[in-house]
């Protein structure tokens, strides 16, 4: 029999709401709730009128770990959004990707700028040997960079001295170096000398450089500016 047509439907609902409907009777009623919309609707109406609000005065603090147990037993993690679809992740990823994109665009540009402003002007080598140091000059002639194929470091009592020998002129000291790698500032008065036809030469001098102002030690590397 349909419970919806039960003469005592309201009484049954009342007992259900009160909690005195027990055992098989309650199960039958709950089945009717699922199967008979009229019963569910009537329950909703009466619940609306009857259900008192529990006061928060009766609230108690649940034992710690209650939520974790639910999470574990219901395997809730499988319903959590995967890490790559979370908003916070996407937001972070978007920021990172944008930054990487911008850097990807600007870094090569910076590098190109640096590279184009430094133009190789001479290959320095021991006579008859393959070049071991490349000299490159900035466009404005203020910076000279020495790039060594392998580290060339002066001994404790020595320094290297870099000279420019203009065509038909005397050697002019550009720098005293501890090692043949790195950029150096070209003395303003000598900038005009770094031009085609001049020769770059490196001599070994006493620590601190030539005591005389002119080369005193052997030339280890030299190369014409082209």
């Amino acid at each position, binding site marked *: 029999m349909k419970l919806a047509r039960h003469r005592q439907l309201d009484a049954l609902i009342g007992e259900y709401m009160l*909690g005195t409907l027990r055992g098989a009777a309650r199960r039958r009623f709950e089945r009717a709730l699922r199967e008979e919309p009229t019963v569910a609707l009537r329950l909703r109406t009466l619940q609306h009128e009857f259900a008192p609000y529990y*006061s928060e005065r009766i609230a108690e603090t649940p034992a710690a770990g209650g*939520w974790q147990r*639910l999470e574990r037993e219901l395997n809730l993690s499988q319903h959590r959004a995967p890490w790559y679809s979370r908003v916070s992740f996407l937001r972070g990823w978007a920021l990172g990707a944008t930054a990487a994109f911008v850097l990807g665009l600007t870094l090569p540009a910076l590098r190109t700028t640096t590279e184009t402003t430094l133009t190789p002007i001479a290959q320095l080598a021991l006579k008859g040997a393959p070049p071991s140091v490349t000299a490159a000059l900035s466009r404005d002639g203020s910076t000279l960079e020495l790039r060594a194929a392998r580290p060339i470091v002066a001994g404790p009592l020595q320094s290297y001295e870099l000279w420019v020998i203009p065509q038909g002129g005397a050697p002019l000291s550009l720098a005293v170096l501890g090692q043949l790698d790195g950029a150096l500032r070209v003395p303003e008065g000598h900038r005009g000398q770094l031009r085609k036809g001049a020769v770059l030469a490196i001599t070994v001098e006493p620590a601190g450089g030539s005591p005389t102002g002119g080369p005193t030690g052997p030339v280890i590397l030299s190369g014409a500016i082209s």
Partner: protein
Amino acid sequence: MLDELEIRRLLLATAARDVDAFARLYKRCAPLLLGVAQRITRRRELAEEVLHDSFTRIWRAADSFDPFGAPVGWMTTIVRNRAIDVMETHDISRVDSYHAALDDKPEASLDQMFDWSQADTAEEALDASRLRAFLRRCLGELAAAERQALVLAYEHGLSHGDLASHLSKPLGTVKTWVRRGMGNLRACIDRCSGNEGATR
């Protein structure tokens, strides 16, 4: 008082398998629902079990929650039914312990256990608030024996048999009090709402 609007939203999101919403639902409602379970089981460890089982059920059955229904009422029903089942399966000699534990004045516990305040001003809430006021007034107008039976049954989940033992009355008498009490309550609320005669 729990914000019904917020709880409804969380419950509907839970039905859509939103774990974060379910976590918030737990955080907001677990304390009150534990209190409801505790009133019926009278044992903390059983109440905690009831709470756990109830939230398991809430997660699984959230999609059967009627979006127009009362969300807290829906969850409360789950907790009360579960607590009643647990008490029955644990075969606890409830009457012995209850004789000592139960309030002698269930009328007083009505105002302890429930929130009859009418602070809400939203139209829908005002409606619910008025109904609560009717319910409280009508409970007060019931015969003392009927009111006592209803409050004991609702608050502590007592069955007809439990009530008969506790009140030392024949089972038939108690059943009549319960049934007549509910009938009178409904008639009174209908009268208050101006709906007298509208029910079958």
